[in-house]
Structures are given as C-alpha cells and as structure tokens.
C-alpha cells in the first residue's frame, strides 16, 4: 500500500515537470520569432542629421538597360564623406526595394566611402553586394556607372573612383566589370550618356 503523502508528492512533482516543459516550449517559440528581428535591426542605419536636399541619383533600369538621372529629396549631413555615403545608401535603398528596377543581392551595402585628395573617391562595398550581384557585362556596368555617376554628380571635385569589396581589391564585380583599375570620371560620364538611351 502506497502512503498518501508519497502519492501527493509524486503528483506535485509531475505537475511541476509538465509546467516547466510547457514554459520551456513557450520560450523556444519566442526566441525563434525574435532572432530575425534582431538581425533586421542590425541593418538599420542611424538617422541622418542634416537638412533635406535635392540630389540627382543615376538609377539603372534593367528591363531596357538604361541609366536615368532622377531627382530625390533626402536629408544629407554636412561632411562630404558622410554625404557621399548617404547618397550611395539612398541609391541602394532604391535597388533593394521590392519594386527595384535593378535588383541587388540581399544584404548589399556600401561599407564606406573615402574621399582622398586629390580627386580620388574610394567606394567600399560589402561582400554580399559583389557575391550576390548578377553576372553580365551590361548589368554589371549599369551598377558601376550608377554608383560612380551618382557620387560624382553630387560631390564636386572627384576625378577618379576606385571600388573595393570588403576593403580589398577584387578582379571583377561579378565576372565582367573590372574593379582592378581606377575609373576615370570623364570616361564614366560618357558611358552614362551612352547608357541613357536604349539604342
């Protein structure tokens, strides 16, 4: 015959075990939902301090293979380097949007833009930008021309542009567009003019 206090003790322990199991299951679900949120939050840029200005972004359209100058009004900081970074981040937001005319890979970012005297700008992209980029001469040169032209149209005094990936030199963007050399802004201006018409 099992004593009454022993039965009660066993039941209490069973109830406690079930309760703790249920709580653990609940917490697991919560953490699973929270992880993507945390990842998303890390990609959010800090708010820009500065007055709103009208800028010209050169936006690529893959469907007809053209580069179009478009006016945007965005808040821009005073310092040239931060202005340059903000300009390119705005351009990338256009490309990362759901209705992007020139989709880029998920996680594509401009890490930094360095303005080096005399007249040299260095654009440092992250590896997700290059690794996730589609391969092809036209699609790659649209990206390069869009970045270079947007920068030079809004930041005066730039004559050469170098593109790095994760702070290092890379042969090509995605198998075609050369990243080993310095882009001559005058030559890119002419290319951008060519790219504004589909023929």
């Amino acid at each position, binding site marked *: 015959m099992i004593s009454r206090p022993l039965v009660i003790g066993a039941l209490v322990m069973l109830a406690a075990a079930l309760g703790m199991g249920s709580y653990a299951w609940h917490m697991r679900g919560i953490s699973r939902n929270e992880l993507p949120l945390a990842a998303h939050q890390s990609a959010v840029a800090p708010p820009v301090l500065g007055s709103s200005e009208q800028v010209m972004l050169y936006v690529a359209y893959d469907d007809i293979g053209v580069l179009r100058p478009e006016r945007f009004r965005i808040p821009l900081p005073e310092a040239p380097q931060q202005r340059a970074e903000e300009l390119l981040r705005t351009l990338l937001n256009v490309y990362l949007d759901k209705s992007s005319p020139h989709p880029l890979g998920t996680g594509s970012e401009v890490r930094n833009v360095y303005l080096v005297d005399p007249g040299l700008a260095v654009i440092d992209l992250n590896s997700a930008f290059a690794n996730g980029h589609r391969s*092809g001469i036209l699609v790659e*040169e649209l990206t390069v021309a869009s970045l270079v032209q947007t920068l030079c149209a809004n930041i005066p005094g730039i004559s*050469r542009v170098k593109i790095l990936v994760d702070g290092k030199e890379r042969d090509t963007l995605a198998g075609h*567009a*050369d990243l080993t*050399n*310095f*882009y001559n802004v005058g030559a890119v201006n002419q*290319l951008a003019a060519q790219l504004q018409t589909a023929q």
Partner: protein
Amino acid sequence: MLWNKHPPGSRFPLPSLPLAMVAVLFPVFALLVFSSLLRAPSAAASAAGEKQLSIYSVVSSYSLPVSTRNGQDYVDLLEVLDPLGKVTAKTEGKRWRVRYQDQDADFTDGKKNVRWLRSGFDLPANFLLEDGHGMVPLSSLPQLLSRILGGPVTWHENSRRLFIGGVAIHFTAQVRQQANQALVINFTAPVNPAIATESGKLHMQFSREPLVAPGSPVLTFDSKVISSASYEENNGSAEITVNGNAPLFAAFSDDRKTITVTAAQQAKTPAQKPPTPPMPAGPGVATSAPGTAGTGSSNGTPSPAATGSPETPLGTPPAGPRKYFAVVDPSHGGDERGAALDDQLAEKDVTLAFARQLRQQLENRGIATLLLRDNDVDLTADQRASETNTAHPAVYLCIHAASQGPGVRIYTALVPAGGEAHGPFVSWDTAQAGFLASSQATATRLAVDLRNQEISVRTLAAPLRPLNNIHSAAVALEIAPPNGKISELSSPDYQLLVASTVAAAIAGARASLETAP
C-alpha cells in the same frame, strides 16, 4: 668535440705549424709555386674548360668549380653555403655534420641518406667526404638548398645556374626606329657583363647577374642594321649575342640598367635613354605587362607570352605578313563559368561554341584566325591579353553571352584612369588607348552589318578586361537571345547568322584594319 668555424671567403683554413716544419717545407712550397708559374698557360687553358656552377641569391651571387667523381658532377657543400650565411662543419669518422644557421644536416661518407631536422631523404648519388669537405652530387643541390634555406630554388640544370628566391633579372629589347637605329636593351636591375665583339656580332656575357631568358631565345628585329639577338645559357653564365651587318658597339646608361647597341657608323651618338614614343606606340614597342614577351620567368615556367608566336617577341610586329589577322577570345572557361544563363547553360559553353563558329566563318573568308581557347580551360585576363599582343592581330574579338536581350551588344574599352607611358613601355592598363578610334570604327561597322540582318544591336563602352590591355583594334560582343528565349541563344541557326555577319563585317573592314590605327 670542437666545431670548426668556416669563415666566409676562406676555402681552406691553414693549420698552425711549428717553425722548423715551416723552414723545411718552404723550399718545397717555393718550388711548387715556381713550377706552377711555368705551367700557367696550360693551367689557364684547363680552367677555361672547367665546369662552373653559378648561384644567385639576394645576399650574394658567385661561381664555384664543379668536380667529377665516378662520372658524376659534385660540388663542395661548404663552399655553396659559405656565402649565404653562417656555416660550420665537423667530422666524426665517416659522419659529417654541417650546421647552417643553427640547424644541422648529417651526411655519411659513401651513403646517399641525409638527416635534416629529424627527417631523412636520399641524394641521387653517394655523399663523399674529402679532407673534411663534404662533396654532394650537383643534381641534389636544388633539393638540398630548398630544405636547408627553406625557400624556393630554381635550377637551370643544363647551364648549371641556380636561383635562390626571386632574384631573376629580366630584360626587354627593342630597336629604336629613328634615324640612328639602335638596339636598346632594358634590364630590371643594373648589369655588368663582359663584352666582346667580332665582325657583325657583339657578345655580352653575364656571369654574376641572374639574367633569365626572354619569351623566345631568338629575337628578330625589323631593322637593316641590327637583325637579331639571341639568348643562351651555358656553364654557369648567360650570354646575349647581338647580330648586325656592321661592327657593333655597346654603351651603358640609366645606372647600368640600359645597354644601347649601335652599329659602327652610328657609334659617335652618345648613349642616352630611349625617347618616349608617341601613343600609340609604333613598331618595336614592348608592353610592360607581367608575362609579356621579352621577360622570362624565374621559376622556369614559360610566361604567357612565351606561348605566342616565337617569331614576334617583345611586342614587335612581324616583318612579313601577319600570322593571324584576327584573334577570337571565348570568355570564361574552366572553373570560371561566367553568367548562369539558365539552370543548365553556362556562359563559358555558349561563348566557346560561338567562337568556334566565328573562327570557321572568318577562315571561310580567308582570314587567319587564332582562337585563344578551344577547350574548357580558364585563362586570366593577362594571359588573354599577352597571347593576343604577341600574335599582333589586326583585330581582337572577345565573345560574351547574356540572357538579357535582345540581340548583340558591342563593346569597346572604357579606358581606366592613369597609365602614363614610361620610356619605351606602354602602360599595360591603357594599352588600348591608341587604338580606340579603330576599335570604335570596327564596332560601328559590325553594328551596321548586324542591323542589316535585322539583329538588334547596341554599341557601348565597357570596363571589361582585357579590352583595355589589347594593343590592336578590340571589341567585345555580348550575344543575347533575339527575342528573350534563352533556348535561341544556343540555336545553331542564330549563332550562324550572327557569326557569318560578324565575319563578313570584319572581312569588309580588312583594308582599314590593316592600316589602323
């Protein structure tokens, strides 16, 4: 047991001798010296035929005698290591231990096995111990030095020249096409060769300089005065022989990094740095690319340019008709697949198929064509450019493919910033600059002919290598499906239509391409 320090530069340390012994031995020694002086001419003659080993390193370049034992070539390992760093040796019976930079190697007289850093390996022939000196087979030196020094060693076996690390000196040569024709040889480091002349020949022998071969051992020049130069290695030295139709003279300049060879009637002209040629560089211009003809490779591997036409080294156009009028370059290849055109179709396969079709169409029209790759191999942009520039074609056609259409896009180079010419060297990155007009004219011609076949065409500039490195008219063709269906890209009919139209356009532009830029 005592270690005998082997001081740098001393081959045979003298033991201390009692004074009486010196007194007895002195007359004998004097007699030997006298008799050796009497035999000097014959000794010199034998020295001339002596086998030499030359070793080139960052710290020292030196030559050593090679001895023959049992029909094998041997060298004294102490003499080899002595100029390279601190070395000592000790003998225990048949065992010989050499210590180099505080690490020991153990050899045994009459045995092949060597112990080095707790591991063993075999020499190709027995180690010999002679009067405290360790003699090792000459052919084992690359392996031995590589282990002892812990770095790359390059061995030119036939000429007995050994290069430790990247010490090689390369050279380029070009005939200066001006009133006073002269051969200008530029070296990557100062040189001091022994120079000898004979009728119409000038020999430069490099014993201490780690000179390496150019892409081709015989360099021919489009010159009536200086017709050719040859490079040869033998018995521990390298030799450049310049051939001309008159007595030749050499003058040094540019801190001994340039040797200018002139014919007798021009020898009064003072040696000077070669003038900068106008862009685009005319005949005889070398390009300063890695692996361009005229430079060798220190590891014995032929540079990319060495695979090109051996008759046209150093970027010099051939004197006669071109071997290849067109170069067709199917982009990508090997592990480098290019764009994924669909789930199964890789860009590299479409470009190769189209390039083969284009070569066939060009050759049907009598246009000699070089296909840069005819199988699934990967070539770097530098290799593609080097091979093309070595072949000196009138036109370079680079083939790409894309899924986004429609039709054909024709690209010319977007020449990058920078790229100044340095003396006779054209910048590798902007070699195309002088040919842009010719390239754009070719692109326009192609576009017109393709439009006439109702193929959609677009002409653009592109930052696409190796277009900017090509030293002739150069265009890239990106072929896309005519109406968006990717299956049509690999259709034989579509490829034939585009290839035959391109070939016809090139054939039509033949006369203007021949005279370009």
